């Protein structure tokens, strides 16, 4: 997913001399070619993320289209005030690319987990938040981001994700994408964890519960009309995210649900506001928080059974 995005920017940089790409000394084997071809516009600003975000704002003030790349906690919370004050307040064309969304760097330990970023970035006025689920959707959405002005926050997983959509998905920024149809339950998933939601939906189908999966990559601006429609037309709406439940994607949907007279029951699945005490792969970490496909299936089936 990260290679898809970096290659896309690299490609665009060949025809657009206004593109700058900044990295905080990360992206080994991902940014090498880009840096070799454009040493003046693909820059390593060192392990100094606050300065890097300010410099991104400075470049954008000069009319450049700027991408800032690092592992998520370092390119978000480490320089949060620069994002607010320099980038968002001045409404600049800067795209923040965070790699290692959720537990993508599970084994590296809790400093490298990114479970608060969605809530933080959502709370920033002017900031648009996108979390693609697989390389194909990252490519489709990435192209649209390249064509529109920022500020953007791009929550990526990392590399080597399975392709969920073999055919190029018809995805648009700001629109939910129905990845699988189903009449009774609508599972709204955001980010790479959509894979688990798809697995759960297949199991639900087999258990006789028709389950839709909507890939909601754009968390802000949210596809409010789609959500309202599902709150009217389905018996149960469930959100799935690999982020803290407080303030994240599920919260965004809950804000819509709370102010809308729907008929569906509504539940959020995600990280229940606690840090883990044990560590492992992304698959292991998802299981700890009940986010594997099998666990999502069981939880949804139980909730549905009680309706």
């Amino acid at each position, binding site marked *: 997913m990260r290679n898809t995005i970096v290659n896309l920017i690299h490609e665009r940089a060949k025809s657009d001399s206004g593109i*700058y790409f900044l990295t905080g000394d990360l992206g080994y084997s991902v940014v090498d070619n880009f840096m070799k071809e454009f040493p*003046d*516009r693909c*820059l390593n*600003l*060192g392990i*100094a993320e*606050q*300065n*890097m*975000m*300010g*410099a*991104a*704002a*400075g*470049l*954008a*003030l*000069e*009319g*450049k289209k*700027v991408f800032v790349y690092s592992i998520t906690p370092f390119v978000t919370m480490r320089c949060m*005030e*620069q994002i607010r*004050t*320099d980038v968002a*307040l*001045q409404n600049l064309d800067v795209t923040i690319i965070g790699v290692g969304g959720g537990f993508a760097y599970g084994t590296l330990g809790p400093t490298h987990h990114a479970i608060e970023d969605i809530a933080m970035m959502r709370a920033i006025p002017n900031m648009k938040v996108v979390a693609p689920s697989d390389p194909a959707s990252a490519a489709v959405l990435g192209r649209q981001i390249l064509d529109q002005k920022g500020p953007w926050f791009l929550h990526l997983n990392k590399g080597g994700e399975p392709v969920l959509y073999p055919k190029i998905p018809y995805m648009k920024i700001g629109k939910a994408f129905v990845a699988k149809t189903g009449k009774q339950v609508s599972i709204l998933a955001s980010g790479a964890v959509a894979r688990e939601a798809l697995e759960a939906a297949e199991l639900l189908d087999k258990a006789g519960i028709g389950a839709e999966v909507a890939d909601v990559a754009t968390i802000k601006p949210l596809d409010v009309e789609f959500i309202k429609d599902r709150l009217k037309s389905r018996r149960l709406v469930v959100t799935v995210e690999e982020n803290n439940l407080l303030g994240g994607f599920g919260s965004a949907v809950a804000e819509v649900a709370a102010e809308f007279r729907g008929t569906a029951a509504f539940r959020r699945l995600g990280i229940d506001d606690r840090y883990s005490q044990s560590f492992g792969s992304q698959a292991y970490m998802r299981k700890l928080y009940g986010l594997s496909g099998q666990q999502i299936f069981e939880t949804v089936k139980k909730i549905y059974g009680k309706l």
Partner: protein
Amino acid sequence: MLKRDVQELQRLARVIRSHIVRMIGVGQKGHLGGSCSIADVVTALYFAKMRHDPLNPQWPQRDRFLLSKGHGGAALYATLAHRGFAPLDALSKYARDGSAMAGHIVKDSMPGVETTAGSLGHGLPMAIGRALALKGSRSKSRVFVLVGDGECNEGTTWEGALVAAQFKLDNLVLIVDRNGEQSLGKSDDVLNLEPFAQKWRAFGWTCLRCNGHNFTELRKACDIKNRVAGKPTVIIAKTQKGKGVTYMEKDPLSWHYKTPKDEFLERARKELNA
């Protein structure tokens, strides 16, 4: 570039200070001490040094100015208005209800205000970004950024010191308003910056020192001739907090936050109008 003699610059700075006192005194909002300490530096830049066009604030060939110590905003607004970027009566709206101008500067709230500032330690990194962009497009424009000495407590100052030297940003000029005072005490009692000049030189910068209230020295320090190829420049401008108003010069700590009322306001006005 406009050339005025030293006396004319001194007269302008006095008029600008009297505006600063009025803006802050009447509205009872803003930081008077820190605005007065930079008044001469900003006057020197806008009336003697920088390339700019008040009728075309976005002129691509202009030199850029970023006021990083946003609490000195009154000095920038007053200088811009005197330089013709905006009508003088716009200053009466400074930090008032409904105004685009806040106590700390807001980008585009007056033509010529290039960035939003207020939180410290943001100006140098943004200036670095601008300098990178200008270097990339082979522009001859220079980027001036003015920070406070207390502001140099911020870690971004030193991240920026490394990055500007690494990327050979010789189009970047950092001016430090070395008034020696910050919010709760003398700068070097809070976090000692000395040996300050040596620090910058050790980071790979060209470092100059001048009296920040002496126009001959300021003009000399800001001169393009001081530019050393491949090195950013820092000018440590020794200044006096509350400069121009005697009772503030004598008690700079109290006048970081305080705004003069009634008798004090009148005394400051009288002294500056004298």
